[in-house]
């Protein structure tokens, strides 16, 4: 068996200061297999990937790519020579260039005599390599026009074209809605005949079933297990990822989803005829006090834009929103915040955190009326620090005592909890959250959901926009499905399942039994 390993890692350790990031980790990638790598943020996944990529040097242990031993210190170029390619979350594609050009930038263009580029020959060559992977993507299409799963496959095809025999996919699906992730899985499975092995790094447990052959789970820098995927199940994987004692805590927060809350009789939020960027038909909806309304669909369906309009990120072209009967100043975030409307943007990097400021400063950016610390005109650091530590405690932002370190130094899940903490420190009347758990580890995911439910229980109307159908199915009391900038279905009660949401998200033809909400 070991003779056909494409990549083998044995007893690899890596230490950063006081943190043992990898502790005697073993891992091997066989020829033709898809090997999933799972673990919480901080479990060592990204360190292992960085060690493989030659970005971080291991302290000890052996590393072999094919028949080549890699020394303790090697460069990314060495590992590329050994036939290992990496596809990272941002994919490294240029949106304005065609598929063929994106691939040719790495592999080289086909040339005419006289060394000028022949675009036709280049396209034909790329078409051949796409066909070898059984991908039906037009080599002339601009990459910007492709769906996210197609983009991932273009990045994979580029890796194949570079003669890679081991490809590491590093959390490429963290922004992918379930149906697209499923299509990607199909495409990846069909490439297995071509020979290379794939290491599939992910947060999302469900997507590895039907995709991966084997799975390795890391926890606290150690390998917990390597197992055949068919021999395991969701609950087993969760236990491996979180550890036996932590599983109980997660169960406590997720085991009773959609416990019927007492919803207010009158709608708290009323939206009428809202039109704006990304919305192609007027959107009308209502959310009751204490209700979590899910809005979901494929990436680009308009759910993010709808959340942005209600959160203040953009001004609507027409339409209105009323909170407690009074109109909201859409398009003016500062006024919305003063009205008790909280918004957690989906783009945490671009619109959520101020990463060069400390966690404490991020928690108290805006001064709310009231006048007492930490909302006074003069900020006294000590009371503010105490308030920040209290929030860190309440929202479990780790490390909890060190609220003065820059937000950038926290893990993705903790950054998200800090952004939530800022938005929710004063109990909101309306909470708009957009993809709150994208790129967030399993443990934090449960906590983020608990925080959102808690806001609803305290009487907020919650609009949960998400491309994660499981999330909407479990967390929302009712869900609207969007398709190409329109409302296409409304699901509630027993109809609200992730498979119904997924089916409804593909288009209006198969919309749910409740029909179009805005046409009634």
């Amino acid at each position: 068996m070991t003779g056909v390993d494409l990549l083998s890692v044995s007893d690899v350790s890596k230490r950063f200061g006081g943190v043992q990031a990898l502790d005697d980790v073993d891992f091997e990638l066989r020829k033709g297999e898809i090997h999933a790598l799972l673990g919480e943020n901080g479990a060592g996944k990204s360190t292992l990937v960085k060690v493989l990529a030659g970005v971080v040097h291991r302290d000890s242990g052996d590393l072999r790519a094919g028949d080549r031993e890699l020394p303790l210190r090697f460069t990314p170029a060495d590992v590329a020579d050994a036939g290992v390619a990496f596809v990272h979350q941002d994919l490294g594609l240029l949106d304005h260039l065609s598929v063929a050009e994106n691939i040719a930038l790495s592999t080289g263009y086909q040339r005419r005599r006289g060394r000028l580029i022949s675009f036709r020959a280049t396209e034909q060559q790329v078409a051949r390599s796409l066909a070898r992977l059984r991908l039906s993507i037009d080599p002339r299409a601009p990459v910007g026009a492709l769906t996210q799963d197609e983009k991932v496959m273009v990045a994979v095809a580029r890796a194949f074209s570079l003669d890679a025999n081991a490809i590491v996919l590093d959390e490429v699906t963290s922004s992918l809605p379930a149906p697209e992730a499923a299509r990607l899985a199909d495409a990846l499975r069909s490439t297995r005949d071509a020979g290379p092995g794939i290491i599939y790094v992910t947060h999302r447990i469900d997507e590895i079933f039907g995709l991966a052959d084997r799975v390795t789970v890391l926890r606290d820098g150690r390998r917990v297990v390597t197992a055949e995927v068919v021999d395991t199940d969701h609950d087993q994987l969760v236990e491996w990822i979180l550890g036996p004692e932590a599983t109980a805590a997660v169960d406590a927060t997720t085991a009773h989803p959609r416990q019927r809350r007492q919803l207010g009789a009158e709608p708290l939020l009323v939206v009428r005829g809202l039109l704006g960027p990304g919305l192609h038909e007027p959107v009308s909806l209502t959310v009751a006090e204490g209700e979590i309304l899910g809005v979901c669909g494929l990436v680009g369906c308009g759910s993010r834009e709808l959340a942005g309009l209600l959160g203040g990120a953009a001004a609507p072209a027409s339409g209105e929103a009323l909170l407690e009967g009074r109109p909201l100043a859409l398009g003016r975030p500062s006024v919305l915040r003063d009205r008790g409307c909280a918004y957690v943007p989906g783009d945490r990097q671009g619109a959520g955190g101020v990463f060069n400021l400390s966690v404490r400063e991020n928690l108290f950016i805006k001064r709310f009326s009231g006048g007492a610390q930490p909302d006074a005109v003069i900020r006294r650091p000590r009371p503010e620090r105490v308030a920040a530590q209290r929030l860190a405690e309440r929202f479990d932002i780790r490390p909890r005592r060190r609220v003065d370190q820059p937000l950038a130094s926290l893990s993705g899940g903790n950054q998200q909890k800090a952004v939530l903490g800022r938005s929710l420190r004063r109990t909101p009347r309306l909470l708009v959250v957009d993809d709150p758990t994208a790129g967030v580890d399993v443990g934090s995911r449960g906590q983020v959901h608990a925080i959102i439910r808690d806001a609803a229980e305290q009487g907020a109307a919650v609009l949960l926009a998400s491309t994660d159908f499981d999330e909407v199915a479990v967390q929302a009391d009712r869900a609207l499905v969007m398709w190409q900038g329109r409302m296409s279905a409304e699901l509630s009660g027993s109809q609200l399942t992730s498979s119904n949401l997924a089916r409804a998200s593909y288009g209006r033809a198969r919309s749910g039994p409740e029909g179009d909400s805005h046409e009634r």
Partner: protein
Amino acid sequence: MSADPQLDERTAPAVTPEAARRSSSEQAADLTNRYGLLVLFVLVAALFSLLKPETFPTLENVQTIASTQAVIALLALAAIPPLIAGQFDVSIGFQLGLSQTLCAGLMIKNGWPAFPAAAAGVGSGVAVGLANGLLVTRLRLNSFITTLGVGTVVLGLTQLYGRDETISGALPSSFSSLGQDQVLEIPLPFLYVVVVAVILWLAMEYTSWGRECHATGGNPRAALLAGVRTDRVTLQCFVLAGLLSGVAGVVSVSVLGASAPTVGLGALLPAYAAAFLGATAFRPGRFNSLGTMVGIYLLATGVTGLQSLGAQFYVEQLFYGGALLIALCASALVERRRGGVPT
């Protein structure tokens, strides 16, 4: 609940001896970051004092440096608010020139009393700052090139009024004493710098407004969505920069007893060099007024010291330019260290 003991267990490593050692070495690095510039200042002063013991470490020399650099220091402080809000204002040097020429000209050529002339100088800075701020926030223009354009127009206006000549003559004595008197051997202009720097420090680090400025500069989109009126904050920063440049112009008239049309332009580079040097001190990674003040006096001490050793005139440009580049590199390194934390 079973959650709590488990959470404690996970946070426990924070108190292991290993982590404690790590955090003490982190603290040492932090101290070096914060006070390195101050130590460098002391070292430079000590070096020239050793090399030129008769002329350099004298009260007179210290007073001269403190008062002649006050104008540049005020200008450097003027650069800080826009920088914190994420904008460049390169018109501040031209604003200084306008304010100076107006203030001196109105008093000497037109016979205005001191107070209205000074108010006109400061007011001209505020007006230019407002124009900069409106262009940048309303039309979403790039601040660097916009303020360069505005600044060039301001220079033209200054030349129109001042004929590009040095305006000198009798000033009201109450006015010149503002720039030339001393309190307890401390020149008044230096006191202005200290007062402005401290007020700016308190405003930026200990008020809600300062927090909004920092958030706007750090991530304007996130600040806006968190409820900050980012356009208003940015506009205010440009106006504050204009106000401080105007003050610098008025102070320069009272120190020099005249207006010199080239002062503002020459001061722009040292002002920015000091602002970036200052961003490596006290609050590493962010622009701050106290660091900027130390930066200005570090540069001035270095240049004065080199000149006292007989260095040629061009040493000043080499020194300021070099210091700006070093400050940029140092800030970039500090940023990298603060940002990159292993998982």
